[in-house]
C-alpha cells in the first residue's frame, strides 16, 4: 500500500563520542540528502554535543559480510546490512510489496 520509492533514504549513523575512541554504530535514520542526514544524526544521536564526530552512510551503500554464514558470501543479494525493503529494486509490477 505504501510506496517505499518516495520514502526518504535510510542512513546508518556512526558516532565517535570523543577523540581517541572509535566510531561506533548507533542506529539509523531517514533523511533526503547527506547534509540533513548529518544534521539529524547530530540532533538525534549526539544532541549536538561538541567534539563528537559523526559519520552517516546510506544503508544501501554498506557492504557487509557475516563470517558465521559462509553460504551467504556467495550470494550477492545477501551482502546488504539487513533486508530493508528499499534496498532491493523490484519490477514495477510487484513494487507494491
Amino acid at each position, binding site marked *: 500500500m505504501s510506496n*517505499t520509492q518516495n520514502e526518504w533514504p535510510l542512513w546508518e549513523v556512526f558516532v565517535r563520542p570523543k577523540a581517541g575512541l572509535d566510531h561506533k554504530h548507533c*542506529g539509523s535514520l531517514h533523511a533526503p*540528502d547527506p547534509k540533513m542526514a548529518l544534521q539529524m544524526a547530530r540532533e538525534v544521536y549526539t544532541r549536538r554535543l561538541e567534539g563528537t564526530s559523526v559519520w552517516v552512510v546510506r544503508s544501501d551503500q554498506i557492504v557487509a559480510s557475516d563470517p558465521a*554464514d559462509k553460504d551467504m558470501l556467495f550470494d550477492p543479494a545477501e551482502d546488504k546490512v539487513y533486508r530493508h525493503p528499499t534496498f532491493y529494486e523490484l519490477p514495477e509490477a510487484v513494487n507494491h510489496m
Partner: protein
Amino acid sequence: MYTQMMDMAPADERKPLRSAEEHELETRFDARIDEGGFIEAKDWMPEHYRKTLVRQISQHAHSEIVGMLPEGNWVTRAPTLKRKAILLAKIQDEGGHGLYLYAAAETLGTSRDQMVDALHSGKAKYSSIFNYPTLNWADVGVVGWLVDGAAIMNQIPLCRCSYAPYARAMIRVCKEESFHQRQGFDALNVMMREGTDAQRAMVQDAVNRWWWPSLMMFGPPDAESPNSAQSMRWGIKRISNDDLRQKFIDATAEQAKVLGVTLPDPLLKWNAQREHYDFGPIDWSEFWRVVGGEGACNRERLADRVSAWDNGAWVRDAALAHARKQQTQAQAA
C-alpha cells in the same frame, strides 16, 4: 510497556518447518537463546520470531511517538520556563526513542513508511495508556512518575532481549529514561510540599485518574496471556506481566507515601507474609474497551498523527525532489 501489545498477537503465524536444514537452524537458534546469546539482523531466525519482534518493536516505537501528544498538550501552558524546558526535553527524548526503535525494527525487513501506514490504518497498536487525556498540569507530573515509572520497569529487562538491535536500542533508551521519572516526581513533590491547597488537590485528582490505567500498562494477567510463554522462550520477554505489575505497585506505594498522596485503592495494603502489597481488582473491561478503540482519546491521538504525517507529505516529497535535482546537477557537472 509495549509487551502489553504482544500478548494479544495472533498465535496463528507458526508455519510447519519445511526441511531438515531448517530444523537444524532452529535447533542452533534455540541453543543460542538458551545460553543467553544474541541474535543479529542477518542471523537465521524463525519467521514467527521475526514477525513477533517486528510487531513488538514497531508498536513500542509507535507508543513513544503517540506518547508525545498527551504531554505535548501542556507545552504552551507550562507554568514556568524551567518546567517548559524540561517538558520539551522529555518529549524530544520520546521522539528520539521512537526513532531508535523504528531503526531497530527496520533491521528486520520492514520500512518506516510501512510501519507508519500500519499505525495509521489501525492495524498496529500503541500502548493504551496514551488514550487517556491530560486534564490538568499535575497530569504531566503523574505521567512522568507513574507512566514512565511503569515503562522503565518494562524496559530494563528488554535490555537483555535476545534480539540484539532491540536490546541495544533499549540500553540507549533506559539511559535517558530515568530523568523522565525523576522530573515527574520532582514536579509533584514541589507542589505537594511547597504548593497551595489548590495545587495539592490538583495532584491528588491526577493520581486518582492515572493510577489504575498505569497498572493496566503491564498487560492482562499471566493466566490470560497465552503468547507470553513463547516470548519468554525466545528471550524477548524476561519477566511476566503479573510479576512486573507487583514490582511496580510495591515501589510506587512507597513513593506515594513520600509524596503525601493517596492511591485510589482501598484494598492496597502491605502483606507482611507475602512481603508484597496486596491490591484491589483491576477493571479489565476498561482495559479492553480502551485497547479496542473506545478510550477517551483514541480517535484524537490517531487523527493527530495521521494529520501530522499527511500534512507533512508535501514537505517530504519536496525534500526528495530537491535532493534528486542536486544529484542530477552533480552528475552533469
